[in-house]
């Protein structure tokens, strides 16, 4: 169940997407997500789908890894779609009992489903091809300007990288604790909601104890190696833009232009 969450899980590879500067990938993901919300029409989704398919192909990550992330948020998507479907006022399409489906509601529901799933797939492409370290490196360098307004860029980036780094460790730990308790006859799957919640205590207590112990050890280890925050800290692998990175930025602009043009000239909207 826990293994379904793909966000923050790196899929090792050597494709060009893997080798891109993390800043490029961050900006690219952002551009992609914004485009999803700014251009909502069938034609826009077609362009977005094409781009996604091509990028996933180049990244050499098996598509099922991207889709795994979707499975985890399926319920969230369903709820969002249902709320939009039933609660948007407008021209009534169907009415039964107290529920009404409006034309606008149906449209919103379809839009939300598209946007949410593309958002997840889009960010999965980034997290699957970028190690958490590169990602926070990218964020830290990219947001360097915010230091001027006393935003603790380095601290936030460090916290993020630690948090991301600990996701797989804690998942692994959870798995082991589940096994250890199952070996003692614990049952995590059956019973009503109260029984299930109670069954989580033998899992959560050791997990929290382990998390605190790890945090303590890590703090000690960082201090022992002279960590003192971001001031004057140099990088072992400084981020430097290469040709492929500039080309990528150009492609982002091209993508946005294509989106604009399709909206202007060949816009296909929902037939509602």
């Amino acid at each position, binding site marked *: 169940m826990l293994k379904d969450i793909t966000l923050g899980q790196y899929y090792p590879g050597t494709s060009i997407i893997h080798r891109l500067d993390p800043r490029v990938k961050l900006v690219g993901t952002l551009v992609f997500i914004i485009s999803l919300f700014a251009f909502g029409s069938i034609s826009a989704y077609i362009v977005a789908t094409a781009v996604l398919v091509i990028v996933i192909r180049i990244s050499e990550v098996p598509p099922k890894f991207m889709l795994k992330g979707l499975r985890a948020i399926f319920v969230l998507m369903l709820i969002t779609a249902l709320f939009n479907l039933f609660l948007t006022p407008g021209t009534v399409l169907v009415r039964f009992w107290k529920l009404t489906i409006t034309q606008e509601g149906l449209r919103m529901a379809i839009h939300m489903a598209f946007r949410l799933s593309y958002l997840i797939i889009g960010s999965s492409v980034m997290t699957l091809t970028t190690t958490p370290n590169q990602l926070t490196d990218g964020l830290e360098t990219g947001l360097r300007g915010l230091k001027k307004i006393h935003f603790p860029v380095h601290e936030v980036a460090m916290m993020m990288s630690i948090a991301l780094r600990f996701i797989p460790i804690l998942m692994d730990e959870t798995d*082991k604790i589940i096994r250890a308790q199952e*070996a003692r*006859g614990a049952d995590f799957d059956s019973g009503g909601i109260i029984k299930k919640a109670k069954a989580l205590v033998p899992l959560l207590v050791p997990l929290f104890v382990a998390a605190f112990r790890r945090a303590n050890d890590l703090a000690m280890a960082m201090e022992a190696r002279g960590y003192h925050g971001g001031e004057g800290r140099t990088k072992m692998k400084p981020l430097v833009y290469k040709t492929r990175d500039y080309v990528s930025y150009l492609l982002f602009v091209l993508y946005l232009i294509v989106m604009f043009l399709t909206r202007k000239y060949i816009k296909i909207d929902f037939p509602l």
Partner: protein
Amino acid sequence: MPIRIEHLSYIYGEGTSFEKKALDDISLEIGDGEFIGLIGHTGSGKSTLIQHLNGLNKASSGRILVDGEDIRSEGYSLKKLRGKVGLVFQYPEYQLFEAEVLKDVCFGPHNQGLSDEEVLARAKEALAAVGLDESYYEKSPFDLSGGQKRRVAIAGILAMKPKVLVLDEPTAGMDPKGRDEILALLKELHESQNITVILVSHSMEDVAGCVSRIIVLDEGKILYDDAPSGVFRHARELEKVGLAAPQMTYVMQALLKDGWDVNADASTVPQARDEILRVLNKG
């Protein structure tokens, strides 16, 4: 309660780029009342193998028969199996969660659906068996020392009255005194309660003194399955797979090479001492 493993294979992450064959065609028979040492270096598949014995892992192919019954057959209760084959994990921290030692030990038998009195009686019996008296009942498991935590963890499994007790590296990270105590405890449990004990370890030193059979795993395959003396004769081969024979074996083999008429099968310090004294007295 004999256990039979037939052509067991297990593949991690099947169908992904992380795919790894952890167990490769393992066939084994474990008889009643045996004391077995399961040895292998890190990543040899020993932990994976023992998690098959109580149904935590599902074999990719092959099957396991406990008491002649296939544990993956339709309608076989894995929960009951876990009462029969008790598995103590490497770190007690993975299973201790209650605020009091006694309550924590009650968790296993309680899950077996026993009455409250029975649960309590079993928990107290198990704690006594691991050498923790009444003064520990109300202590927090988190305040105990490493060795004591391990005892509580073992008691937590013993309280379920398993016929087979499997321990995953019960001495990992312990000081020599604590290690000797745990090993002595296991020996004592094996003799007094007449249960089968499978001790997983990467140290021959640990198991040399107590087990009657050693199974050596390497890269998911069984390398040796023999009495300790038989396995230790392969000291050179053991070194090739990242293991070693007990130090005393090396001493005895060196003596033998120097022309002393000793029995090189002595593998613990007391055995070696007796053997050397015997030869010296004879001469």
